């Protein structure tokens, strides 16, 4: 389904659209307050951008340095070229430890690789332990936002969902009760887990350590209790030095939710005694994206979700309308690199307003990249005949002043003289809910010529 189609379905319930828009605008507003109280916020963004650009230009060096240090720390390091290999590696580790029950903290990478269904096919229970993730897992839906995975669900819907799956009592969507019940349910899962899977927010090359940021402490609960910790990371998560965390942790929490820092910024460096720690480093199309000069900066992304919260289209179409692991503006520049045809409508799901680029903590030129993907998509994928020919026609008209004048005259006459019912008939999508301007008798050209004559 095209983004536009999915968005128009989402817009059938205007009240829900208003609610969704306001919920996310609230987060954007909190971000503004947090950002505006930091002296040197823009310098911090420049630094974040610079460190990421430098790292991506020296990725091979930093990745091998990271591996070397992680190995020294007693961590086992694995390399996966794609999602399949990643899933096989994780599965292999779990089998080796005879792990049947797995708790997972939030990881967009494992979503991207579709790890859960892969493991579930071998009767391994995978429980997402982030509250929002657990909600969408119970609802059998993908996350609709990378930081707020269940933002599309109202608390009343969660109430019903929990009654069905966790046996809770009806509570009119009382968030405190529902969270308390989720907590009890998840505690059980943590205590009995054979292995814990986490994502990675930052992997520090000079220490071999990783940092996982959560607000619920669920990564820690998992990793500290289970005998095996598997951390899965994309190759772009590397930062050169421990001290660079000072830049990124300050940017991340504020941009994501307006917090000064995420509640838990958990540093994992080596396995605790008697336990095992594995890190799986995944490419899955990232090297290819890195090879595209126009789009490599998309790999700077630290997954804060600010571009989603600010995007007027995302807020009014919902994350699922993008039908991609990463929705919203950043997803719309990442996804076409993975499957151009499938995601060919995403770069057009934007007015190119540029708010995403200005809110981005690592200054990714998101809207410029959207524009560039558009140019590629119209060349490399099948386009509607009407769009193609009308663009060609417009190009011809605008290249020739005399043609432009003639066409303009006809258009103005039509707007002035044709009945509204004809102007607003079905092929004119504009006219469905909007009027067109009345065609004036004189164009500016006509007026100007007349004025020159009379002077």
């Amino acid at each position, binding site marked *: 389904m095209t983004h536009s189609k999915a968005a128009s379905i989402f*817009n059938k319930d205007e009240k829900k659209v208003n609610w969704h828009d306001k919920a996310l605008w609230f987060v954007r507003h909190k971000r503004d307050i947090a950002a505006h109280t930091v002296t040197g916020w823009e310098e911090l963004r420049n630094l974040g951008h610079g460190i990421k650009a430098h790292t991506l230009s020296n990725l091979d060096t930093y990745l091998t340095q990271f591996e070397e240090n992680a190995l020294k720390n007693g961590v086992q390091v694995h390399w996966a070229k794609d999602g399949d290999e990643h899933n096989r590696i994780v599965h292999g580790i779990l089998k080796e430890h005879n792990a049947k029950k797995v708790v997972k903290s939030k990881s967009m990478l494992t979503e991207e690789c579709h790890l859960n269904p892969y493991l579930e096919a071998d009767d391994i229970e995978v429980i997402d332990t982030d509250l929002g993730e657990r909600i969408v897992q119970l609802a059998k839906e993908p996350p609709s936002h990378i930081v707020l995975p269940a933002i599309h669900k109202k608390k009343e819907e969660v109430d019903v969902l929990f009654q069905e799956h966790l046996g809770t009592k009806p509570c009119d969507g009382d968030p405190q009760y529902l969270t308390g019940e989720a907590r009890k349910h998840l505690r059980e899962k943590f205590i009995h887990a054979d292995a814990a899977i986490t994502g990675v927010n930052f992997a520090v090359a000079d220490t071999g350590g990783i940092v996982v940021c959560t607000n619920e402490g669920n990564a820690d609960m998992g990793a500290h209790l289970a005998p095996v910790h598997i951390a899965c990371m994309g190759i772009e998560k590397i930062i050169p030095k421990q001290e660079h965390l000072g830049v990124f942790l300050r940017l991340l929490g504020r941009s994501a939710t307006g917090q000064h820092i995420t509640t838990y910024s958990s540093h994992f460096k080596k396995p605790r005694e008697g336990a095992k720690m594995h890190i799986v480093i995944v490419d899955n199309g990232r090297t290819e994206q890195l090879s595209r000069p126009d789009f490599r900066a998309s790999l700077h992304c630290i997954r804060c979700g600010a571009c989603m919260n600010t995007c007027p289209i995302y807020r009014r179409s919902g994350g699922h309308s993008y039908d991609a692991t990463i929705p919203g503006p950043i997803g719309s520049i990442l996804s076409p690199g993975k499957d151009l045809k499938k995601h060919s409508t995403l770069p057009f799901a934007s007015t190119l307003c540029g*708010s995403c680029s200005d809110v981005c903590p690592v200054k990714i030129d998101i809207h410029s990249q959207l524009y560039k993907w558009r140019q590629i998509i119209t060349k490399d994928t099948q386009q509607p005949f009407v769009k193609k020919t009308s663009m060609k026609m417009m*190009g011809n008209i*605008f290249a020739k002043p005399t043609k432009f004048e003639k066409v303009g005259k006809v258009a103005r006459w039509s707007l002035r003289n044709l009945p509204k019912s004809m102007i607003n008939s079905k092929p004119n999508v504009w006219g*469905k809910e909007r009027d067109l301007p009345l065609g004036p008798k004189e164009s500016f050209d006509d007026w100007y010529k007349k004025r020159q004559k009379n002077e």
Partner: protein
Amino acid sequence: MKVGLFIPCYINQLYPQVGIATLELLEKLNVDVGYPYGQTCCGQPMANSGYENESVGACQNFVENFKDFDYIVTPSGSCAYHVKKHYNIIEQTDDVVNVRNKTYELCDFIVNILKIKHIGASFPHKVGVHKSCHGLRGLRLGSCSENVGTEYSYIDELLQEVSGVELVTLTRKDECCGFGGTFAVTEEAISVKMGKDRIQDHLDSGAEVITATDTSCLMHLEGLITRNKQPLKVLHIAEILNSTI
């Protein structure tokens, strides 16, 4: 100083009054204005739709028409931004580079080149300013709410000097209106919803008139206002700055 007036295609055909106000305003400010007859469009409609190649003829026609002027001024932030940002698709001859450097949106030109703020206009109404995105975040005609730094707005600076104008405070001071060129039809549902939400913000803030640097945004908003019979007018900023009521 000879200034070439660029009247965007849709203003030329559908909103000549905006072009007239722009020309009269510049002449009032003692600018020597020329209007080359061969001009058509900056090429943006094709380029933003992913058909940059089909816009080459329009770009070349633009440069051909305006290459001999000291400045090119247009009542559109979006078109000015397009010339500056996206004319890298044609060969960068001296003329092309020059045209790109010398193209200005109207308010930008008045404030930063003419260095005038007080125009002597009067317009006794409550005005809501719609900060059109390409002017705001592309040309940086003002600070945007995402960035941290000194707040400024060339548009507000000019309007504050207009006698009788009362600027209203919006809840979302720089959210996109949802026009977006072909987006307005390819993503019709969202486009309409964004427009409706912008209009409501202006109504809630007590505005009588919505103004902007771009008639494209205003055409979209006006289309909704007219259809829904709402008590609001739209006027391009040139029309307010040229007003002496």
